[in-house]
């Protein structure tokens, strides 16, 4: 193997393809636990592992192959119905999958592959061997029959069972007794030669001998049927096919004498069909006896040959003249012997074209149903191509640039109209071109965004496994309901969402849901439910994680907040329930009594929040004490381009995300007031804090001017007014990230990025969540 040099791309392909299979495996295994009898599912799981193993073996990932092989053999035994998958099997299989995942990480990181836990591998392998159980289904030939040198009684005494089963062993008699009494000796002396075979064929030799003997038994039954008028056509067809199979096998092993005999039998079968002749039987018996003799020789690694040339000649010509009447010990129309093999072959299709439905092919044939339906799916799957993320990234960036250019063209067109530049015709055309460019660009932008959209199932799919493991670890009973997994969001958002969601789910399991006993005491069902749902809501996606546990204990949250010095008692007293709940999002806050290995991993809810905010999302809580808690996350469909309201502050222009703007008002004097020296505004029946944009962005006093407009921003349920000097208009802005240092220190004020305006200038984009932090921190300082 070592001389094979593979393209690193192959390894990359492997990681991508097998990585997807692995993700699916996790889900499928958890589903399997609830439906251990689902053969389709078992087959799919088996195939996935099989594929991973196959590729891995080429790439010489021996540690991976090792564990995959063990898992595969366990699954193989399960799908062969040696046993039904139980919980401990699941644990083993999941452990194996986990190991493979680790090994994938190792490959990505360029490390040596983690070695599998030998105990798991050994247990899986033991399960694979079925714990002594036999293989009643498709692996019958290798498992049971291969061990016995398959001597079989004549068909007359053995009604054929539907599948090749372990036959009654006849002690050390490696010959098939062919009924009819034909003796090979009549042809002349046998020559024996040692058998020389290349290793690949030698490996199969024992299997071949078993198979030949099986075929002979079947041939025997068919030949017996040739004597009865009614069953003859069917028997002849079946005979032809069996002989054809035998011929193919013999050709593969290059056993010319056996192959010639098989061809002779084929000819005989054809003749028997067209000529309706019984006397075909004795030569057929002799041919079979010869084949049996050869097979017996093969099992001892010997080639046995007799002079058969003249005998073979009789096959074509001799039928019609051979005088011996058919003599057979078999009752002619034994229905049990006839039923199986001939039904397939008695169909109108001519025997010479070897009908596909081989009577022995039952094991393999059963997978072939529902093909047309699945075919369609497979076709759809093939209609996709893999594109490097980097290329999509570049494409999106270019679209971003295009949007900026479009904005400038639009601005120029507006300018042309406003200034009455050029002829009437020119102005109309400029307007048309600019409008057309606008439409095409938005369509293009949408199309490109769609290429980056991925269904949330990509991350949701991992949670059943997570919850299963957590429930087991915590001794809780948890039912996870997932809804709306097909909802699509931008790839970069998906990537950022994974960890926060896991954290939130862990929290729900660990802190939210009570133990079965506590639940029973509270009059709830012992099984707690976590409902993870996603849905599209305008320009963003809403994700809810709802549990029916005990809900947040705001008293304890308050205590903790005071203990940790986050707030004073006085401040706490002023806070609403909702505000108290939100304390958990503050840095350094964790109510867990002790660090548990489930959710106390040193990352608090503040990390969750900041991760969500990184993708321009918002997070909030709906607490229903005693009944449960719902975490509500809103994320934009994409993070790269957004609609913004451009506002002027002094000489500067800022972009405010349109999705955060509730309304824009020009407050009258009597609407303005101050509480605790903080400016507020009365808006209808609410009071909201006001922030001066000029202060927020630290504009020098000389550049500050009157700020008559209040842009009312919302974050979840909260509202704040941002006072600005001018309203410029709505624009699509392309978010350009700021220098990391700048955004981390917040030196430029609450800004999340920058963008190029339609007039070519640069504007900062207001970071709404940060702005709320400032607004809310202010009065409590």
């Amino acid at each position, binding site marked *: *193997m070592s001389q094979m040099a593979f393209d690193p791309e192959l390894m990359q392909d492997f990681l991508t393809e097998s990585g997807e299979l692995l993700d699916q495996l996790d889900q499928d295994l958890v589903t399997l636990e609830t439906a251990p009898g689902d053969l389709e599912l078992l087959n799919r799981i088996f195939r996935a592992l099989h594929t991973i*193993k196959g590729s891995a073996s080429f790439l010489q990932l021996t540690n991976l192959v090792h564990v995959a092989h063990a898992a595969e053999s366990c699954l193989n035994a399960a799908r062969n119905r040696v046993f039904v998958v139980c919980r401990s099997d699941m644990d083993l299989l999941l452990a194996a999958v986990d190991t493979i995942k680790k090994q994938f990480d190792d490959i990505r990181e360029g490390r040596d592959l983690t070695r599998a836990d030998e105990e798991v591998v050994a247990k899986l392998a033991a399960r694979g061997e079925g714990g002594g159980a036999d293989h009643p289904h498709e692996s019958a030939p290798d498992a049971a029959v291969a061990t016995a040198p398959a001597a079989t009684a004549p068909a007359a005494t053995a009604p054929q069972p539907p599948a090749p089963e372990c036959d009654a062993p006849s002690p050390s008699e490696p010959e098939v007794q062919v009924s009819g009494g034909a003796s090979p000796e009549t042809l002349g002396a046998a020559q024996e030669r040692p058998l020389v075979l290349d290793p690949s064929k030698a*490996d199969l030799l024992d299997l071949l001998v078993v198979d030949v003997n099986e075929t002979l038994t079947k041939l025997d039954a068919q030949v017996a049927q040739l004597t009865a008028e009614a069953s003859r056509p069917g028997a002849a067809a079946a005979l032809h096919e069996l002989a054809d199979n035998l011929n*193919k096998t013999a050709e593969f092993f290059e056993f010319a004498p056996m192959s010639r005999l098989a061809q002779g039998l084929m000819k005989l079968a054809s003749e028997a069909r067209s000529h309706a002749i019984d006397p075909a039987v004795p030569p057929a018996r002799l041919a079979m006896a010869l084949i049996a003799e050869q097979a017996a020789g093969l099992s001892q690694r010997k080639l046995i040959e007799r002079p058969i040339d003249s005998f073979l000649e009789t096959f074509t010509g001799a039928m019609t003249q051979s005088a011996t009447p058919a003599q057979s010990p078999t009752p002619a129309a034994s229905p049990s012997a006839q039923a199986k093999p001939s039904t397939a072959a008695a169909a109108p299709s001519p025997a010479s074209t070897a009908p*596909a439905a081989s009577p022995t092919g039952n094991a393999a044939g059963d*997978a072939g149903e529902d093909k047309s339906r699945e075919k369609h799916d*497979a076709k759809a799957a093939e209609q996709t191509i893999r594109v490097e993320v980097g290329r999509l990234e570049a494409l999106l960036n270019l679209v971003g640039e295009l949007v900026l250019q479009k904005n400038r063209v639009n601005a120029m067109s507006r300018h042309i109209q406003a200034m009455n530049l050029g002829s009437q015709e020119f102005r109309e055309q400029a307007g048309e071109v600019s409008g057309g460019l606008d439409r095409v660009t938005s369509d293009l932008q949408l199309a490109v965004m769609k290429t980056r959209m991925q269904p949330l199932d990509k991350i949701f799919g991992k949670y059943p496994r997570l919850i299963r493991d957590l429930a087991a670890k915590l001794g809780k009973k948890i039912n996870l309901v997932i809804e709306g997994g097909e909802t699509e969001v931008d790839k970069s958002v998906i990537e950022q969402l994974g960890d926060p969601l896991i954290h939130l789910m862990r929290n729900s399991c660990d802190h939210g849901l009570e133990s079965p006993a506590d639940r029973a005491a509270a009059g709830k069902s012992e099984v707690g439910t976590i409902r993870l749902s996603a849905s599209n809501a305008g320009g963003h996606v809403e994700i809810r994680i709802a549990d029916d546990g005990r809900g947040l204990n705001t008293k304890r949250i308050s205590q903790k907040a005071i203990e940790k010095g986050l707030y004073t008692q006085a401040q706490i007293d002023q806070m609403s329930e909702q505000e108290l709940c939100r304390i958990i999002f503050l840095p350094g806050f964790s109510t867990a009594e002790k660090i548990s290995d489930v959710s106390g991993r040193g990352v608090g809810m503040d990390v969750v929040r900041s991760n969500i905010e990184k993708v321009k999302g918002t997070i909030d809580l709906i607490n229903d004490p005693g009944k449960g808690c719902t975490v509500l996350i809103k994320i934009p469909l994409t993070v790269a381009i957004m609609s913004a309201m451009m506002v002027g502050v002094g000489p500067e222009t800022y972009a405010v995300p349109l999705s955060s703007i509730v309304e824009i008002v020009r407050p009258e004097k009597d609407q303005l007031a101050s509480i605790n020296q903080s400016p507020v505004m009365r808006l209808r029946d609410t009071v909201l804090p006001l922030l001066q944009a000029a202060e927020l962005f630290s504009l020098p006093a000389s550049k500050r001017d009157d700020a008559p407009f209040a842009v009312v921003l919302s974050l979840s349920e909260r509202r704040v007014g941002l006072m600005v000097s001018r309203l410029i208009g709505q624009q699509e802005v392309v978010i350009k990230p700021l220098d990391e240092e700048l955004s981390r220190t917040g030196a430029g004020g609450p800004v999340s990025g920058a963008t190029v305006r339609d007039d070519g200038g640069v504007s900062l984009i207001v970071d709404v969540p940060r702005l709320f932090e400032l607004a809310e921190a202010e009065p409590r300082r």
Partner: protein
Amino acid sequence: MKIMLIDDSKTMRNIQRSVLAQLGHTTIEEACDGQDALSKVGAFQPELILVDWNMPNMNGLEFVKAFRQSNKTTPLIMVTTESEKARVIEAIKAGVNNYVIKPFTPDLLSQRINETLSRLAKAA
């Protein structure tokens, strides 16, 4: 020589393609399962087919059976694993001309291809 690769794993197809490329074979058509292959053989007219056993929709054995109904001559090599070896005879009876066990070296594959072709040439 025109070779068709039938395997549901893109990785496996790429690996086999690279092995075949090392042997100087570059006219290659791929199919992701038996059904897909049946729909492509007509247009491609392969001179050799490498077919995997375990595939969704239509597995290798089913493909061989279906393919052999209309085509008795094009050489077929079954690509199998150690664990499937026990069933190779079944595939041979269905019309496979040879088999090769994964993982294989370019040498082994080359040997199997030559072996298959020369045996067929002898038989013809």
